[in-house]
Structures are given as structure tokens and as C-alpha cells.
């Protein structure tokens, strides 16, 4: 079948998007709309002594100014964590925070929201915002976790001693200590997994309108999770039934986890439109996005590996600090916990002992960013493996081969109680080594040297736990016989508008042109949880399969009635209901049309043909793969040129190769970004953002990346009905260590054994200079 599962089908959404007809949130203009501008905190830590809004209120065009005091007076709440460890059965108390929609009394990070100004035009709102005078008493600020846990550090919360919300530890400390005692070799690395931001090319943004007739407010927003936004705003901010608020997300220009939660601005425009009874639109500038979006990573780790003389791993131990910023909100604890739970990655390790602390500082909150904890875990493990291989004089492929969990050990239960259902790590690595022309490296290296460049290669093996929570998918036929997919997930670039219909077409035999797709409107989709954590194909796809199964079961009853047979004698195959052993048959479309006949149907069949499917990822799926990169480094300038990149991924059954490859390529791009370019920097004393534009926060451009070679080793997942594993994050998880390890390989001959991320030319130059000095 041309449109069936596994086919490289092109995307339904593309003609709209590439003719300029996409509708992103800033493209929505509502009649009579007013414009919101936020007054952000200009300091990282301080007490708000007073806010003077008099001059701003008198400025031309100003319609409304709101501060934290108004929020308090209106009884509005704040945003808390989706869960703390104790909420998920871990008996560890932690300091729980509530992030206000506008600061009350205190500001805890640069960019905290202090006041809202609404005016007739965006320029008037901006001018008036300049006139809002906030009198702060500046307090000392702390921006790094390492400093924040020290005695005497500035305290973000008086109640959280040493700025620590909670400490978690997993594994067996005693057994690990014993293993380290007896080990033939131990390896140690110190890592800072730097602070990043998603920087979706479409910034966040929102537009809200209050309907005086119905009393309902509609919020248009750029999000990955429209129902989640409604739930949070209704439940925690406005304390009202969810029926008062309709949330709509149209085209969304990327999210990468950053748009998975809910933000103060979304509450503010809803609040403001109810006050002035006109639509209120908010569009941030890029600098405001860099300052106010929730951020990613920021983990500091001391890690050790104990091995026997043959290179068999005996134990893994690490202790980390996760800088969670000024508030723990939404899914902030996901990366903290996932890094621990994935600690042993793909290796058979007899004992582990891993721990981290969630540490408050005066920088913005962290949130899952593409990978969310898995990049941290894999980066630690792969850096240890590479360093151990180098120290012990063992080939890095060989060292991994000795320690990879064997395919026949599946299902494999890790020390943190993950069950890896399937995976052929050794075979996948071998496939990648072959594809990368591993053996041709020395020749390429010699050529590079002749051109004044060092060449290095890096291999990384990643695994990723993907799919989370349950979700709901609906299939609704209409009387004409065409079908609508009502998705609880939310595509914002992944191409669900193409892939889900592709699957339904395959399963039900309905032509893809007769399949409509809707998502992202709480009034049209009864419930959903959105898209993040590479969950959509696993959870949404599986739920869709069950919805299709329900359609088939119901369809059999209608078909039996029409064809005067017993439902037990109806078989469904290739889009047709057939009375077994006869040539009597009806197509899916005919059956659907029959289901809407105005008369003559037995009442127990009901009216119409609809199916609802639900699926819960009780166990995640575990996509995994091997990435090999080769870099050249200019000996004069220290600039890294990424020359080759090969990935072999096991994402289970692939629904659409074109789209799956796109996920890997984009993911690798972001992983390379962290390794070479991206870094959010704050001044350690003042907490001011030093990377507030695209000039300072650099991201990969077309000339920074090579053409990648991507292959699949499809090992079906056994924990969901369609055999898929998440596709969204693996590229990012694998690429960062693969690139850094390649850089170290290139520089080892010069005495360099460590390099911070991102490995900028300046840092490479510095590392070379330091190595020379030490020699």
C-alpha cells in the first residue's frame, strides 16, 4: 500500500506551511486586540520595595497595569511542580515552591515577571512599561549549584538549607565502595553539563479573548500541551472549572520540551482579557525569550568507574548537583530523576551508586529540554567509558563490547528498576562501526594532519527511556464515510498529521484523502496530554491502534446486521468486512455510512461509528543506538569542523522513514549544538544574562553540520502493541558525547584530556595552552 506503515510518505501539512499559510500564534490577530508587555525583573535577587505605576498609567494608550499585589487581591494562585519525589513514592521530603504569575515581595531571578502593561498598540505598551518604576533592594545572588550548596551562600529560600530542595540516591553504596576497593582500575571524570535553552525558532506567545455572551475565555497559545495549559490555569491560577477556558494551539514552531509546561504570561493574558474585555496579545522578543523561557540541563557531576584488569565494569558511582534555578515548576524534576534512573545506560554493571541534589539558584527554572536527564546520564557514562578505554589502552569499541548488555539478556532489569524489553546493542554498534568506515580512520587522520588539522573520532552508545503517561485517541466516522482522527497528542513539527492518517489508512483501509486530523483545541479534543518525552508514537500510536480495533469490532456488528449474518462470522481484512466463507462483503466506508442510517438499525448498535482508544506507557520504551563522529581541528585557530557523522538507531518499528530520519538529523543538530556552540551564561556575581541574543547564544547553522549517514536496526518493542520506540530525542542524546569524545581523541596527542562544553575555539586554544604549560 502506497500510504501504508513504513512508507516514506510526504507530509500533509507541508503545502500549507511552505506557502506562508501556516497559522502560528503571532499570525493570529483578533478584532480590537490590545497588546501586552511584561516588566521583567532587571536583577537576579532582591526585595521589591515598591512599584510605582502612576506615570505608566498616564502614558498614551495604556489600558491596564497589573502587579503581584493585584494578583494577590484577586486570589490568583501560582505554579507548582507536577510532582516532587514524595509524590511518586520516594520517601524524600523536598522544598516545594510556587512560582507566582507576577512577583510578590521578592524576585528570585533575572526575568521574573514583575508587572503587566496592556495598551492599544505594542509600541505604546513598550513605552509605558519603561515608565513602571520598581524599587528593589538588591540581595546577593548565586548562579551555580556548586556555589549555592556552600555554607554562607546567598539563600534563595530561607526554608531550604544550603539551597537544596531534595537529595536523591539510587543503588547500593556499600557494595560499590567494596568494588572500588578491589578494582584493578578506576577512572574518574568531572563534568559540567552546561545550561542550554531550546530557542524554538517560533518564540512563545499568546492571545486571549473573553466572550461576554458565553462567559468563556479562549486562549491561543504556542504550546506542546494545550490541555495541560488549561488544567494548570484553571486548577492552580484561577481556581475555576476547566469549562471556563478554551485553549487552542494551531501551528507551533518547535518546542523541544520548553513549551511543555505553562508560563506566567499565559495566565496574564487570560486575566487581562477578562478585565478589559478585549483580546490581549503577547509576543516576546528574542531577548525576552532567552531571558524568560524555562531552560535545560545544568548538572555538575563527579563520576567514577571501577573495572577489573580485563576491562569488565565492576561498579559505577557518581554524585551530581542539578541546578534547578529559582523555582521547581511543572516537569522540572523529570531531568533530575531521569538522569539517575538511566545511569547504567546500556551496560551490564554489577553495582551502581548514583545521587544528585536539586539545588536552587538565582537563574530561571529548568525544564525538560530535548532528552531531559538522558543526555546527562549518557554523557557521564560515555565519557567514563572513553576515558577508561584510553587509560587502560583498550580499544573503545572493544571495551564497550565487553560490557554491553547482551541481546539474549532481554528483558533486562536495571538497578533502577527499568525493564529494557528489547535491544541488540552489540549488533547495532557493529553496524555503525562498519557504516562509519572505522578502519579507514588512520588514513583520513594522516590526510588531515598533512593539511594542518588534527582528526579525532568519537563513538557513543546511547539509550533513552521514552513514552510517559497515558493518552487518548478517537476515531470518528461521519455519515459520508470519511473519518476524523481526534488526537490527544500535539504535533508541533513531528508530522502527526501525516503519520497517524498513514497508520489508520493501513489499518482500516480508508483512503488517506478521506482521513481528517484534528488536535490542539480543548473544545474539539475531549482530553489529551500533548507531545513531549518522545511519547506520541508510543502512547498516541498505540491508543490509535486500540481505537481502530474498537472501530473494527463495532463495524463487524453493523456489517453482520446489514449482511444478515452473525457478528462472529464477520472477518475484517484489507479494509473489508466479509461474511466468512462467502463472497458477501462491505467496505469500511459502506459500513460507516450504514451506521448513520436514520431508521432500521437495532438500538443496541447505537448511532454512528466511533472508536476511542487509550494507552498507558506503564513501562517506557527504550530506543538506543550508536553514533560515531569524526572531527577535524584547525591547529592554528582551534576551530572544530564536524566532518563525518554516522548514526545507527533502533527506534523499533519505523512508521515513516523520511520523518524518522528527520527526527535523528534534527536531534543530532541540537546535540552538536551543545558540544560546539550553545551555552547560557550568567554573570556569577550579578546574575545578569550574558547571552541574550542569537549573536551570543549560538546555534548550529547549515555550514556547521555535515551530511549525516543514518541507518536503522529495527528491533520491535514488546511493551506496546505497535512495536515502536520513541524517535524524538535519541539524536540529541547520542550526538553530544560522540562529538566531545572525538575532540578529545583529536587532542590527546597534544596532552589534552578534558574539554568543557561547548568546545569553542577559545576553549580549545586554552586547553592546548594549559597542556603545553603542564608538559
Amino acid at each position, binding site marked *: 500500500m502506497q500510504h501504508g506503515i513504513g512508507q516514506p510518505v510526504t507530509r500533509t501539512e*507541508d503545502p500549507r*506551511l511552505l*506557502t506562508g499559510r501556516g497559522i502560528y500564534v503571532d*499570525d493570529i490577530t483578533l478584532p480590537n486586540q490590545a497588546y501586552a508587555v511584561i516588566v521583567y525583573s532587571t536583577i537576579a535577587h532582591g526585595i521589591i520595595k515598591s512599584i510605582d505605576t502612576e506615570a505608566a498609567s498616564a502614558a498614551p494608550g495604556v489600558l491596564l497595569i497589573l502587579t503581584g499585589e493585584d494578583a494577590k487581591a484577586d486570589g490568583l494562585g501560582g505554579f507548582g511542580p507536577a510532582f516532587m519525589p514524595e509524590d511518586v513514592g520516594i520517601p524524600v521530603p523536598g522544598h516545594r515552591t510556587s512560582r507566582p504569575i507576577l512577583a510578590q515581595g521578592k524576585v528570585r531571578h533575572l526575568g521574573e515577571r514583575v508587572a503587566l502593561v496592556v495598551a492599544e498598540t505594542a509600541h505604546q505598551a513598550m513605552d509605558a512599561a519603561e515608565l513602571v518604576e520598581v524599587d528593589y533592594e538588591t540581595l546577593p545572588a548565586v548562579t551555580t549549584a556548586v556555589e549555592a550548596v556552600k555554607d554562607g551562600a546567598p539563600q534563595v529560600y530561607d526554608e531550604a538549607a544550603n539551597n537544596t530542595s531534595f537529595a536523591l540516591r539510587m543503588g547500593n553504596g556499600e557494595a560499590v565502595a567494596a568494588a572500588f576497593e578491589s578494582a584493578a582500575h578506576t577512572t574518574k571524570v568531572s563534568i559540567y553539563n552546561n545550561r542550554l535553552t*531550546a530557542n524554538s525558532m517560533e518564540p512563545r506567545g499568546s492571545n486571549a479573548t473573553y466572550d461576554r455572551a458565553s462567559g468563556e475565555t479562549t486562549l491561543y497559545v504556542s504550546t506542546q500541551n494545550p490541555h495541560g495549559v488549561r488544567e494548570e490555569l484553571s486548577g492552580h491560577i484561577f481556581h475555576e472549572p476547566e469549562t471556563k477556558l478554551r485553549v487552542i494551539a494551531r501551528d507551533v514552531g518547535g518546542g523541544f520540551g520548553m513549551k511543555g509546561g505553562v508560563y506566567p504570561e499565559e495566565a496574564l493574558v487570560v486575566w487581562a482579557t477578562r478585565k478589559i474585555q478585549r483580546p490581549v496579545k503577547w509576543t516576546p522578543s528574542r531577548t525576552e525569550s532567552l531571558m524568560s523561557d524555562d531552560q535545560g540541563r545544568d548538572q555538575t557531576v563527579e563520576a567514577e568507574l571501577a573495572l577489573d584488569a580485563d576491562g569488565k565494569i565492576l561498579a559505577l558511582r557518581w554524585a551530581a548537583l542539578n541546578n534547578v534555578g529559582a523555582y521547581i515548576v511543572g516537569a522540572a524534576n523529570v531531568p533530575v530523576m531521569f538522569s539517575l534512573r538511566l545511569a547504567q545506560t546500556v551496560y551490564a554493571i554489577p553495582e551502581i551508586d548514583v545521587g544528585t541534589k536539586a539545588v536552587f539558584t538565582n537563574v530561571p527554572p529548568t525544564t525538560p529540554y530535548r532528552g531531559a536527564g538522558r543526555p546527562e546520564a549518557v554523557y557521564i557514562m560515555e565519557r567514563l567509558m572513553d576515558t577508561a578505554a584510553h587509560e587502560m589502552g583498550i580499544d573503545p569499541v572493544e571495551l564497550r563490547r565487553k560490557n554491553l548488555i547482551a541481546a539474549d539478556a532481554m528483558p533486562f532489569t536495571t538497578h533502577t528498576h527499568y525493564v529494557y524489553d528489547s535491544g541488540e546493542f552489540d549488533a547495532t554498534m557493529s553496524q555503525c562501526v562498519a557504516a562509519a568506515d572505522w578502519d579507514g580512520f588512520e588514513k583520513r587522520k594522516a590526510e588531515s594532519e598533512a593539511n594542518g588539522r588534527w582528526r579525532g573520532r568519537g563513538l557513543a552508545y546511547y539509550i533513552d527511556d521514552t513514552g510517559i503517561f497515558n493518552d487518548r485517541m478517537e476515531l470518528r466516522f461521519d455519515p459520508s464515510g470519511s473519518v476524523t482522527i481526534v488526537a490527544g497528542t500535539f504535533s508541533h513539527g513531528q508530522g502527526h498529521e501525516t503519520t497517524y492518517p498513514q497508520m489508520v489508512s493501513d489499518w482500516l483501509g480508508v483512503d488517506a484523502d478521506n482521513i481528517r486530523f484534528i488536535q490542539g483545541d480543548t473544545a474539539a479534543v475531549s482530553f489529551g496530554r500533548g507531545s513531549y518525552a518522545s511519547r506520541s508514537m508510543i502512547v498516541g500510536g498505540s491508543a490509535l491502534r486500540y481505537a481502530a480495533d474498537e472501530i473494527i469490532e463495532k463495524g463487524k456488528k453493523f456489517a453482520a446486521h446489514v449482511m444478515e449474518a452473525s457478528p462472529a462470522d464477520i472477518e475484517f481484512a484489507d479494509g473489508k468486512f466479509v461474511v466468512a466463507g462467502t463472497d458477501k462483503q462491505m467496505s469500511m466506508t459502506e459500513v460507516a455510512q450504514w451506521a448513520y442510517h436514520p431508521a432500521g438499525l437495532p438500538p443496541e448498535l447505537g448511532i454512528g461509528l466511533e472508536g476511542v482508544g487509550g494507552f498507558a506507557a506503564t513501562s517506557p520504551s527504550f530506543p538506543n543506538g550508536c553514533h560515531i563522529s569524526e572531527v577535524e581541528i584547525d591547529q592554528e585557530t582551534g576551530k572544530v569542523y564536524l566532518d563525518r557523522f554516522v548514526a545507527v538507531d533502533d527506534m523499533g518499528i519505523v512508521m515513516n522513514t523520511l520523518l524518522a530520519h528527520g527526527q535523528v*538529523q534534527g536531534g543530532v543538530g541540537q546535540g552538536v549544538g551543545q558540544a560546539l556552540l550553545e551555552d547560557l551564561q550568567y554573570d556569577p556575581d550579578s546574575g545578569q544574562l550574558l547571552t541574550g541574543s542569537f549573536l551570543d547564544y549560538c*546555534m548550529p*547553522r*547549515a555550514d556547521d553540520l555535515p551530511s549525516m549517514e543514518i541507518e536503522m536496526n529495527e528491533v520491535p518493542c514488546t511493551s506496546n502493541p505497535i512495536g515502536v520506540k520513541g524517535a524524538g530525542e535519541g539524536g540529541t542524546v547520542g550526538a553530544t558525547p560522540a562529538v566531545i569524545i572525538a575532540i578529545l581523541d583529536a587532542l590527546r596527542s597534544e596532552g589534552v584530556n578534558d574539554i568543557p562544553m561547548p568546545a569553542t575555539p577559545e576553549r580549545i586554544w586554552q586547553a592546548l595552552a594549559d597542556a603545553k604549560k603542564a608538559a
Partner: protein
Amino acid sequence: MAKHHIQTTINGDEVDVLCEPSQSLLDVLRDELHLTGTKEGCATGDCGACSVTIDGRLVCACLVLGVEVNGAKIETIEGMADGENLHILQSKFIEHVALQCGICTPGLLIAAKSLLEENPDPTEEEVRYGLAGNLCRCTGYQKVVEAVLDAASELRGA
């Protein structure tokens, strides 16, 4: 502040528009003319989401003032297809799935068209350098580059 009266040709249509002296061409296109296909990613000239051509020259619309384009000929993404007939670059973007979220795509298409007009037979490296002014956070650029090279060879063959 007095508004300025601007007369330009946009995608072949003569357009009269009043704009503030402080409005960028991007603001004028999006807010005054409701041509929202041209996107804003930064407003500082660093991302290329706002790419348009003025008298055939590729520019960032966020760096040009509306009042500067009086009498000029402007091409935006809305004018790239000929009615329902997509430009070959657009077709190749579909064929190669050179977009994911699509927010950067109008800018990339305008930049790619301009690139191929200047250099009908680019190497992969030339395409990568030629598109380096356009940020895309989703695709890793590979399929974009493939689509542009494919379009170039088809245009040369045609």
C-alpha cells in the same frame, strides 16, 4: 506621529500603505498588510526567518524600515507559488520533507531561491554557506540542503 504613505509592488501587486517611521518592513508586511508568511525569529538580522527580496536582492525584512521601500519591488513567500502551482523549490521541500515545524521555511525558501538565481549549479558546500544566514532548529538542515540541490539540478535540466 505622522504616518508615511508608501507605494510599492508586492508579489506583482501594487500596494499603497500607511506606516509609522519606526515600523520595519517586517512589521508593515505582517501587521499592516497581513502578509504573515514572513516570520520574525529575532528582529536583529540573525535568523533569516524574515527573508524577502527587495528589487531582487535578498534582505532581512526586520532590518529594513517600511519607509525605505517606497517604489521598490518586494517578493515574499506568498508570491512564490504561481497560483496552485508550487515553485520547484517548494515541491522539492515537500518531496524531501525539508521542514518540520515550518516556521523557518518561508525564509529558507526565499533565501534558497535567491541563492539559485545567483548560482544555478551550487555544490553542497555552497548551499550550506548560502543558507547559513537562516536558522532552523528542527531539521539539522540535511533535507533542506538535499532539496535545494535537487531543485537546482531540475531547474538546470528544465
